[in-house]
């Protein structure tokens, strides 16, 4: 096991549109440590989603390298990427991307079955995750009948069912109200606390601030990063919130 789960070297992506080259990513060097909770933050169009798509093999780079778990993967075929994703990378999207004519339980179990687990094993894992995420009661419902917050929990269960080394979350709270946002982020943090490596992309600093490290992107490049500390005692903090004039 390598300490670095993901490494990119001079990763670049240029799109061709109207006979013009449009660079979306201009040489990004990024390391993701095993067990880290990393947020990539930046305005829309900064390249953060492109970077995430490349890390998940949903798109292919036009330059540079991607290493996953010590293995170079940027040149993998689509089929090889599909295999890698199925076993080692969980993906959570802004729009949940659940299959509408399958039940919640079937949505969650599907990746486990595709990865070759038995129905019993898939069911066992689904039940365990559903319990942790508080969606046991929704098992037989279609995704369209449950709230956005619950749908994202289902998507999270689906992403985690094969115990992926890397969990990728692309604006996971973009379609959620503030209460559901808080709950989903809290769950991400709980899985991270148990050792899950998480890479999250967001334009929202409020969301990014839950990570251990925040990398900022602009115009296709990484422009800076901040390391954040864990939970701190609340008493001192509260006193700095408000002052009453003496």
């Amino acid at each position: 096991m390598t300490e670095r789960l993901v490494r990119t070297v001079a990763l670049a992506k240029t799109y061709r549109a109207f006979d013009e080259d449009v660079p979306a990513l201009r040489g990004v060097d990024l390391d993701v440590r095993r067990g880290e909770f990393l947020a990539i933050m930046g305005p829309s169009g900064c390249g953060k989603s492109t970077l995430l798509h490349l890390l998940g093999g949903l798109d292919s780079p036009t330059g540079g390298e991607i290493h996953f778990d010590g293995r170079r993967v940027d040149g993998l075929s689509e089929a090889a990427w599909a295999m890698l994703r199925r076993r080692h990378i969980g993906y959570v999207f802004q729009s949940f991307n659940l299959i509408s004519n399958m039940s919640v339980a079937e949505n969650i179990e599907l990746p486990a079955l595709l990865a070759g687990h038995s129905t019993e094993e898939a069911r066992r894992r689904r039940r365990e995750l559903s319990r942790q995420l508080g969606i046991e009661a929704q098992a037989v419902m279609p995704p369209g009948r449950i709230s956005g917050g619950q749908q994202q929990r289902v998507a999270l269960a689906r992403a985690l069912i094969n115990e992926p080394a890397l969990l990728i979350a692309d604006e996971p709270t973009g379609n959620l109200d503030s209460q559901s946002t808080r709950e989903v982020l809290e769950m991400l943090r709980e899985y991270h606390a148990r050792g899950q490596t998480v890479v999250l992309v967001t334009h929202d600093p409020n969301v990014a601030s839950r990570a251990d490290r925040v990398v900022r992107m602009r115009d296709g490049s990484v422009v800076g990063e901040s390391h954040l500390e864990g939970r701190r005692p609340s008493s001192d903090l509260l006193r700095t919130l408000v002052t009453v004039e003496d």
Partner: protein
Amino acid sequence: MKYPLLALLATAPAHGYELKQRFEARFAPFRPPVNVGQVYSTLQRLERDGLAQRRGVVETGEAPARHLYEITAAGRREIEQWLSEPSTGIRLRDDFFLKLVLAGTAGLVAPAEVLDRQRALVLQELRDLNDLLSGSDRPEATMQLLIDGAVLHLQADLRWIDLCEDRLRDGGL
């Protein structure tokens, strides 16, 4: 302390120690305990200015005797006036702004570093506040409002820092 004490007196007459307790019950999580001496000196000033008056002595059997204070008509007008006015005050972290401008002038620290460190601090504060909101013991409603307000201010700070960075990059600082 003047206006908070007047507002508390407007609810019901009280002696100094009682006011301290009422104030703390209302604001305890955000404020350190109130110095009772400060409450007494504020009450004396209120009395001097005709905003409150002594109504009698509470017999506690102990020395010194506690004076019971009540709000006067003038005091009631004063607190109504205060509560009716919109609040002015410092909206920006001006110490940070001074640093940003002076760092460039003095050439000792790069302004970009000032921005980076400030951003890191604000992110950390955002994280801390969100921890309070998502912790197992949810804060009570007043405190939650205050935290929500602080979070929004920090978000505005971050946008301002981004703007400063843009100007800096364009050579405008």
